[in-house]
């Protein structure tokens, strides 16, 4: 209350109570729909909570969501629509780095701030000073995985990379660099492309190399099939992966095949902090299922934007940009988030393990 009292424009705005328009570009259908829908639900939940608490600057937030059907060429058009037709003050999204890379130049040219909840490719925020991210980047996550692998005492690791995803290639590079620099050995490098269903050829040659563990920085659609087929081929060692594993269908498809495997992620729903408990409860009440990383990141992206609007006391994009850039120690559900001078988030990662059909917290890795 005290904060909003300081904001004079807020008081005037409260009289008119015209909504603040925020754009969201997400893959609600198509190949990456699972991520897009999750982050959309998280974003939507955050906006609902903000509005229930009276909005920001006394005005409600109106979220305008457009579906890009996971198709190249769409995000640029959508962002143009959001900015010029709907006149949004900021854009939230996309999850996939290749889509964010398409949307970012348009936001940058129009000087509209854009916050991507989950694009981990370093290039995204390099597009310009209006592009932000609230997740950690690929090199950090690769190093976290490698550090964890060494702590587990694994000496020989095989890697299975999704070469169709820059995310996976980036994670693999950083993992291998750190792992070999610290005395580990990569005994086999194998590749697949997202959309593949049969991984027995790659697994066959991995099995022949006898590793201690397999690093699979893939996505939730392929990882459970990889694990299942690996168990069939008699590969019993643990798998290790990144945040791409998180998705509704991972455990449903994998059954028990991924038990005893580990992955790095943004958030653990087992976190006992009141903030996370509250988020998990309201999310379940609204959507039924448990929130995943993408939902948590979507939630935080909207919350950080709202906090920045409050701090700027205005929705003027230039002031808003500065306020977002100044984000420090934001207490989000995915941890304490600060944005550095390159507009990347500095925040902890968590390592989760899979057991009894659920994700369980193992440890937190600070940056």
């Amino acid at each position: 209350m005290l904060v909003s009292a300081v904001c004079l424009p807020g008081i005037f705005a409260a009289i008119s109570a015209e909504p603040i328009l925020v754009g969201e570009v997400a893959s609600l259908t198509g190949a990456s729909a699972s991520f897009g829908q999750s982050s959309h639900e998280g974003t939507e939940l955050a906006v609902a909570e903000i509005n229930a608490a009276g909005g920001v600057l006394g005005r409600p937030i109106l979220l305008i969501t457009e579906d890009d059907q996971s198709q190249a060429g769409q995000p640029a058009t959508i962002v143009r629509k959001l900015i010029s037709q709907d006149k949004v003050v900021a854009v939230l999204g996309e999850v996939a780095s290749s889509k964010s890379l398409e949307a970012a130049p348009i936001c940058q040219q129009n000087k509209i701030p854009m916050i991507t909840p989950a694009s981990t490719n370093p290039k995204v925020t390099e597009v310009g000073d209006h592009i932000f991210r609230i997740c950690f980047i690929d090199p950090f996550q690769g190093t976290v995985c490698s550090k964890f692998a060494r702590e587990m005492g694994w000496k020989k690791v095989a890697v299975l990379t999704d070469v169709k995803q820059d995310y996976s290639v980036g994670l693999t590079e950083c993992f291998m660099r750190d792992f070999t620099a610290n005395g580990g050995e990569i005994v086999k490098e194998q590749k697949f492309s997202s959309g593949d269903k049969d991984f027995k050829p790659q697994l066959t040659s991995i099995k022949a190399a006898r590793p201690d563990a397999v690093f699979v920085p893939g996505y939730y659609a392929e990882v459970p099939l990889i694990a299942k087929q690996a168990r069939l081929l008699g590969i019993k060692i643990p798998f290790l992966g990144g945040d791409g594993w998180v998705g509704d269908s991972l455990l449903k498809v994998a059954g028990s095949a991924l038990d005893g495997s580990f992955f790095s992620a943004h958030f653990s729903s087992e976190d006992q902090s009141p903030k996370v408990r509250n988020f998990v409860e309201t999310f379940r009440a609204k959507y039924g299922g448990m929130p995943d990383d993408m939902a948590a990141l979507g939630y935080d992206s909207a919350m950080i934007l709202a906090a920045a609007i409050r701090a700027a006391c205005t929705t003027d994009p230039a002031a808003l940009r500065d306020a977002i850039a100044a984000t420090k120690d934001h207490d989000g559900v995915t941890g304490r988030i600060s944005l550095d001078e390159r507009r990347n988030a500095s925040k902890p990662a968590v390592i989760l393990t899979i057991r009894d059909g659920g994700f369980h917290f193992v440890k937190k890795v600070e940056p």
Partner: protein
Amino acid sequence: MSRPRTLLLAALALCAAGSVFSGSINPYYHDILIMIGINILLAASLNLIIGHTGQFSLGHAGFMAVGAYSSAWITIAWGASAGWLAYLSALFAGGVAAAAAGLAVGVPSLRLRGDYLAIVTLGFGEIIKGVIQNAEPLGAQRGLGGMAQHTNFFWTFACVALAIYGITTLVHSTYGSGFLAVRDDEIAAEAMGINTTKYKVLAFVIGAFVAGIAGGLYAHFKQFIHPEGFSFLRSVDIVVMVILGGMGSTAGVCLAAVVLTVLPEFLRSVSDYPWLPAPVRELAENRMILYSILIVVLMLTRPQGLFGKLDFGRKKP
């Protein structure tokens, strides 16, 4: 001065006049306008291959990819100093590179026809995509970005006017009637002494050239290109424009390109109007379902295409 040439000059003048205002129109509509221009180029060039020459091709997005990537690579290599001259030469080079790819596809077409040709062109499109996906200098799976936004209203529609003028005059010339002869009856054409080989390869080369230009325009408009944007589904989109417009009818195909570009965006805006009844909005939100139903229904009710035998530069008989 002949009538088509007058029309061309008028169209170019219109482009120049339009470009004066293009800065002041809403960038979203501007985006749709440019995409209309690019899709017209793609559809009209594919129409030369399918509609006029009767060679079924499912790899048009591949030619577009060649044009997009080669032109983008050139302007990026040129660096920050790349002005409109660099841009135009890059566009042209992209067209030439695509034409070379068209030649490579056109040659097997001498031995194959119908569905076999369809699968081979589809295969070439996938091979082009696959090569890009493995080419590090082109960004491989990451996609390629960093081109400046050179493409504007004037260049896009100047290309459209030139391409349509070129294709229409070619097809309507005495020389160009060979294309139609190949389509209507290849054996009879050959018996009449028409070099069918030459015409088929020529259709692929010219069609690919124009598609390559369209790719270059696209790359310098969106400023980020990704191999997945040139997949087989993109080729299918272009084929649908040609068939819906009415094969061989340049004007019809251009109209279909306009309709099929605007329609999805129109449906997108329909779902934004809160005063519309909920079922209508829900239907509009699932616009891809609507789009596919539309294709089936149109084929069932108007198999000759949406705009039948409409054509440029020809008086009604």
